[in-house]
């Protein structure tokens, strides 16, 4: 992946102000955006509806209106919890959840996603944790989440949940030695090769620079 700023400038140079075309080519399921008929059922179905800045309906309208900066810097698509209510209800059968995640990933790739957005940070934490060994190290992931906002906040969180942790330890659902050297996938190198290949394919399909 090239430097984010560079990548954004390249995208701008390629699509100019035709943001819809950019979304159609580069965002996962982006070719569906033009099929939205603005009924608003997605906005009404979303359990997080009141907490978003822009509903999916508005996001689609903004994409068609060419509001590139506003869409990509929005934290709306990061708020999606993947409940799929909108996908089930959309009369036009748009894969709205997938589009939301596609937009989020694309905004992140461009470096335009809101830096401190908690979902974005959590996603990165999870991705690094998971891809390193090919397996999720739950202890490290949990601790990473606890200490995401600093040491004091981390200890506070750990203290609040101490009984649950203890219980898990006694039930052998939590192995403290994972902290030192977690278990790994048998063919770690193979996983890494696979991820690299997937990134290559994505870059080729979406017209990104080679990773």
């Amino acid at each position, binding site marked *: 992946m090239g430097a984010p700023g560079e990548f954004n400038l390249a995208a701008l140079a390629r699509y100019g102000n035709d943001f819809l075309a950019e979304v159609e080519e580069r965002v996962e399921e982006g070719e569906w955006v033009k099929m939205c*008929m603005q009924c608003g059922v997605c906005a009404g179905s979303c359990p997080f509806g009141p907490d978003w800045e822009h509903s999916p309906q508005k996001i689609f309208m*903004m994409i068609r209106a060419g509001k590139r900066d506003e869409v990509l810097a929005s934290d709306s698509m990061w708020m999606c919890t993947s409940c799929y209510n909108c996908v089930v209800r959309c009369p*036009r059968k748009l894969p709205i959840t997938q589009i939301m995640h596609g937009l989020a990933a694309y905004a992140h790739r461009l470096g335009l996603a809101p830096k401190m957005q908690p979902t974005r940070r959590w996603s990165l934490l999870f991705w690094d944790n998971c891809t390193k060994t090919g397996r999720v190290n739950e202890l490290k992931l949990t601790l990473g989440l606890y200490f995401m906002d600093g040491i004091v906040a981390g200890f506070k969180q750990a203290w609040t949940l101490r009984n649950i942790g203890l219980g898990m330890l006694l039930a052998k659902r939590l192995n403290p030695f994972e902290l030192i050297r977690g278990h790994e996938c048998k063919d770690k190198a193979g996983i890494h090769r696979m991820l690299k290949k997937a990134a290559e394919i994505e870059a080729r399909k979406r017209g990104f620079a080679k990773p």
Partner: protein
Amino acid sequence: MADPKYAAYVCKGCGIGERIDADQSAKIAEKEGKIALVRQHEFLCNAEGVALIRSDIEKEGVTHVAIAACSRRAKTEAFEFPGVALARANLREGVIWVRPDTAEARETTQEMADDYVRMACAELKKMKVPAGNPETGRSKRILVVGGGVSGLTAAVEARNTGYEVVLVEKQAQLGGWAAKLWKRIPEREPHAAPVDTGVQALIDAVTQDAGIRVYTNATLAQTSGAPGRFKASIAVESGSTATEEVGAIVQATGFSLYDMNRLPELGAGKSPNVMDQAGLESLARKAAPKGLPIRRPSDGGEVKRVVFVQCAGQRDDTGKHLPYCSGYCCNTSIKQAMYFKDANPAVDTVVIYTDLRVPGNGEDFYRSAQKKGVTFTKGSVTGVEASGDTCRVSFRDLILDEDASIEAADLVVLATGQVANAGVDIDNPQATDANGTKPISILNLDYRQGKDLPKLSHGFADSHFICFPYETRRTGIYAAGPVRRPMDIAQAKEDATGAVLKAIQAAENAELGRAAHPRSGDLSFPIVQLEGCTQCKRCTVECPFGAIDEDEKTYPVFNESRCRRCGTCMGACPVRVISFENYSVDSVGAQIKAVDIPDEFSEKPRILVLACENDAYPALDMAGMQRNHYSAFVRVIPVRCLGSVNTSWIIDALNGGYDGVMMMGCKHGDDYQCHFVKGSELANSRMSKISETLKTMALETERVATYEVAITDIKRLPVLIGDYAKVIEKIGLSPMKGFA
């Protein structure tokens, strides 16, 4: 005709025999009803029972039959005896099914049954077998006014059914608006792209058919007569007049586009690049057949961006423009956007809409346009400004709730709507239409009620919008296509087909001297005793169908073929000289008088219910079928329409000691459901004046009540009756008992 011979039959089937004393009812028919031949039967509608009646008709010479069994709406085929007058006493749906089967209810239930038998016998004595309208016309040709898609389709469909057609078109060419289109909205799968209009094939089918006489450059100078014998004087280009006799008329005079010059705020007239949808069609017809792209009219420049403005001068609530949606324009804009996208996907096409309305299979067409990359923006356009060869379109984005604009639009297409070409407003002949022009008459009818069809709303020609869309208030004249409501080609074709079939039915019924819809097949017609007439003109004014003209001395002249047999004239007549052979002031009056009125101290009130036979009476029957009980104090008489209710019935009933009168008719007003359009409304206004009469009789105004009832009011009606019975209980029994 030989002397009348009366017979009455009391059926004991369906539980009637167990619930009421049939011997007593039979005795009442014999003694009080003075019926010579009275029989009881266990199961009257079975083959044996029907054969019994038939044999009495044949061997005993019975001419009038009263059947005390089920509702007049049930077993109509079994109890059909041609040439015999028939009265029915409704003992099943009207009595045993609406009464509880208890010992204490038995007495009042029996009284109810006895009264219905009395009423049927009394009605029977006043009935004659209708002979049919002698003033029949024999022409079955169909006159089609208008040679657009609706008119051409009507002509072709009439020919397919085997009827000859006379087609009159004002323009020099046939085809109307459709002939001016480049392509049309698809009506078949896959609804993906504009298709050929097919109008040439339609024109060829009409011009090559020897059974269709086509007059182009022609108008109707006068239309007179009635169904089966209309005379149309057709003014042709040479100045001469041709006369054609026709049986029925289809008016398919279509629409004019709303004049876009009334929309200067949307850039109309400011730049040749701002046009209405017809303007774009003409550009497409010039360029597309040669395979050339559509170019900017102002300078012939390349078109890179087109903006379609929906609802231009439509759905306007300020009162300045059309208040309604024309229904076809969203699909048309989608089609026109495809003209560009199909030729060159790089052209930017934006449709700005507030609500995209795509009837029929338009959703598929809309989806296809989205796939092709037509942009749909939900917004309302606030202004179009021309500068140089492009325009700036400002609008309010209704999703993002902000002001926005589209710059450098090469073409702006305004989706203006349809204004009906429906002729003059007969209530206000000087009125202008929505385009500000004063219409000229289309049909030039010589009716006293005016030269054209009445208008329903927004200047569209008459239509019984909710129940029978092709029916107008002029019998034998049917409106089809955009003249009666805004519509597209597919709908207009369907409309024309329906209307022409109604026209054929009207011509056929006229030949047989029968009524047209909704009393199709009815042989009775109004008979007036002119020696009693006071020339008050109420019947001529109130007839909803323009069936009655006036002679030089302002006596009414009935045109039976134009009559729908609703009886509104009979209800209107203050001197009671209008009647039908089987339905008259006397036949209903006799039923009212036949009811046995218990005295003032009996605590048994009698409530007369006059129920419209189209909606209220079936609803009462269905209440019975569902065993929804109601008061035993009501006596229901079905009437053809509440409009046929003569005030004398009400006065007679109250004088005769009835405690209250409930009148049940259909919904009236703008969204009326009255089969006869104005009947229930007229009845309502007549009854609003009855309170004065009640006061002079020293009676409470509550004693007459009018209700709007729909056929679905199966549960509501028993409640209404119950509530009214309580009102009567509260104000007490009528003091008029015992004087009649």
